[in-house]
């Protein structure tokens, strides 16, 4: 079954520390996405990717980097974490085509920056 797996599921980091959130998909989808979800803001797009080696900025990319080393893996990197980055982060995959199946989401990664 198609799946998107995120790790870690929970993370506590200190201000100024580096955080890497990882995402793996077994759907062989070209497109992958990183969102954060906060009360009052809904889901906001941070970075996305069209395929291995590509990363694109979403709507709120500041303070975040992304890496897509392979079709299956897409990471979100916080080089210098700040308390404002405390949130729940969701990864998703999809092929974006006209007659595509579904978008698949991971379980979410809860990040707390102290």
């Amino acid at each position: 079954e198609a799946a998107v797996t995120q790790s870690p599921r929970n993370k506590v980091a200190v201000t100024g520390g580096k955080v890497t959130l990882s995402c793996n998909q077994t759907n062989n989808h070209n497109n992958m996405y990183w969102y954060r979800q906060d009360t009052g803001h809904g889901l906001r797009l941070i970075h996305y990717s069209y395929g291995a080696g590509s990363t694109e900025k979403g709507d709120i990319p500041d303070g975040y980097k992304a890496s897509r080393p392979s079709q299956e893996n897409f990471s979100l990197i916080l080089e210098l974490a700040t308390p404002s980055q405390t949130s729940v982060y969701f990864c998703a995959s999809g092929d974006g085509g006209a007659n595509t199946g579904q978008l698949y989401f991971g379980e979410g990664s809860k990040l707390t920056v102290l």
Partner: protein
Amino acid sequence: GQQVQQSPASLVLQEGENAELQCNFSSTATQLQWFYQSPGGSLVSLLSNPSGTKHTGRLTSTTVTKERRSSLHISSSQTTDSGTYLCAIVSNNRIFFGDGTQLVVKP
């Protein structure tokens, strides 16, 4: 850019009543999907329906592509249906979400 508007923002029903949720989007979408999210939970796909009408269980989605709107009908609501329903569309390889409809079903 693409905008996705959902209505109503919130809805309170008695168990057994039907719910009708709306999603309107501002430009062409190649894909449309309805998701359910429980409080603190992940997004669970309910229906993928870029055009036409689809049914699954008590859910019916109708998307009118030319009019850029979709609806999700929940029949005979149950308390376990409570949560947030999100509409998402794919346009130019990007996903755009609405803010969701918060549904509360009372026993």
